[in-house]
């Protein structure tokens, strides 16, 4: 475990040394503040459009950070040949994958805390109410969703040749799930066999990342989700993250390093 944590700490340091997070955060802040400076019909209490834009930017930024950071971890170690001294520590390939995952996931968590703090400040300054439970649930579910994304991208990084192709393919899959995942069952019932069966199989097999997108509930001030449901979603994400990590280990353990 110590070995994995050591690897994770290096990944976290890498995040705050790189410019990606700062650029994305500054962009999010500037766009949100610019949109917030607009006034519609002389009413300065309109807030939901601003919350929606801010959350959308946070989701885009978080996905870019998660996929970008995870996709380059193992290929970069190979390219720089630092993977040889790392595995000679001794540290097993499983521990390396666990460490890389933990590092990327915790780094995403840290980034999310900063983003959601900014979102909270903007929201409270306009709305004058602090929906703490809803904000926490949104942050928590978002973080677990990124756990699945990080694990999926790590799997991609040992399957695909280059980080760029891995990042592009992962982003396409993630966006497809986010946009279509909820509706695949409706599409399946309108198709003829065997396509209906194929689409149904995809529907039940893919990780439903859209479950963790509670932006509409936060934007429109709905009540917080039942905490037991939240626990269920957490277990669902954990199961998929472990599945992808295990698959990564299966591929990586026999893979030549050069």
């Amino acid at each position: 475990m110590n070995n994995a944590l050591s690897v994770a700490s290096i990944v976290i340091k890498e995040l705050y040394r790189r410019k990606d997070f700062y650029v994305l955060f500054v962009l999010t802040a500037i766009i949100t503040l610019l949109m917030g400076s607009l006034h519609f019909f002389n009413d300065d209490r309109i807030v939901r459009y601003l919350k929606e834009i801010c959350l959308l930017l946070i989701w885009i930024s978080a996905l870019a950070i998660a996929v970008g950071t995870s996709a380059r971890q193992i290929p970069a170690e190979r390219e720089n040949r630092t993977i040889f001294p790392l595995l000679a520590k001794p540290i097993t390939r499983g521990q390396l994958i666990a460490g890389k995952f933990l590092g990327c996931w915790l780094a995403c968590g840290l980034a999310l805390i900063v983003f959601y703090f900014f979102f909270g400040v903007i929201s409270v300054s306009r709305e004058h109410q602090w929906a703490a439970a809803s904000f926490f649930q949104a942050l928590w579910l978002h973080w677990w969703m990124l756990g699945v994304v990080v694990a999926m991208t790590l799997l991609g990084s040992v399957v695909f040749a280059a980080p760029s192709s891995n990042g592009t393919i992962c982003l396409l899959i993630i966006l497809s799930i986010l946009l279509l995942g909820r509706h695949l069952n409706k599409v399946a019932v309108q198709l003829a066999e065997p396509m209906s069966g194929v689409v149904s199989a995809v529907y039940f097999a893919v990780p439903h990342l859209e479950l963790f997108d509670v932006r509409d509930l936060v934007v429109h001030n709905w009540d917080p989700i039942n905490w037991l449901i939240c626990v269920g979603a957490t277990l669902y994400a954990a199961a998929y993250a472990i599945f992808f990590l295990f698959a990564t280990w299966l591929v990586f353990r026999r893979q030549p390093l050069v």
Partner: protein
Amino acid sequence: MPAPSLILALLFVVCFTLATWLQPWHQSWAGGRAQSDSLLGVVMGNSRQLFANHFFTKADVYFHSGYYPSVFDQAIGGAPHITAAKDAAAETDAEHGREQSEEAGFLGPPRDWIDRFSRNFYPSRHSHLDRPGEAREILPWLRIAADLDPHKVETYTVAAYWLREHLNRVDEAEQLLREGWRANPDSYEILFELGRVFDENRHDSQRARNVWELALGKWRQRSARNGEPDDFVLEQILTRLAQLEEREGHWEKALSYLEKLEAVSPKPEAIQQQINDLKKKVVSAPPANRSGAQQTGKP
């Protein structure tokens, strides 16, 4: 082989000549965006209408607090509409109830455990922005929709309705309607809504009458041109005019509007009843009032 500088000079001359020929042609070209009076028009062209529709729908989504059918659900069960609530004042409770119950069913029963589980993570109950002042949240999207497509009349009438009826922002509503009127000078819908601002909010009967009569004229022109009369708006204009004239004591004019209304109303019996009641009122009124009313009732 001539010198490269000469080739470059020749190309420059060709480009310059082409530019002097193409520029005037492009300026006079009917499809050119350069004639557009706004930056949005130049940049986005006709795609503005597409985005305007999207943002108008977005306002509807906000009106339902995020509870809104996706394109997949709409293919099955249709979409709720913000204008349904706008026109609710003219509808019966049963009609509005029907709209609500139709919407309540767009999700249908859960199809599987993922569907059932996922409904905890997005708005899955029918809801409206009912609390005082909440309706303001739809305004940014309507403003953007109006900016993107100034010829979408519905945007102005819906926004003006919410501004004056639910947010008590009569000045902003009037300003928006005037803006819409400038962009759509033939729109009787905008004139009708403007008349409501004068009548219900400003209590200025004279201006309301003028605007509604103008709306009636525009309606006649458009109907004559298109051949497909919009009886729904005509019915509303005639109803409002009849009510205004009756309130002002111009009974002859009120009767004339009611008789026109009877011809287009889906409930002619009710209108006939109103006509009978008004006639009784005219007969039972003191002679001085009756004559006065008839005098002032002259066009």
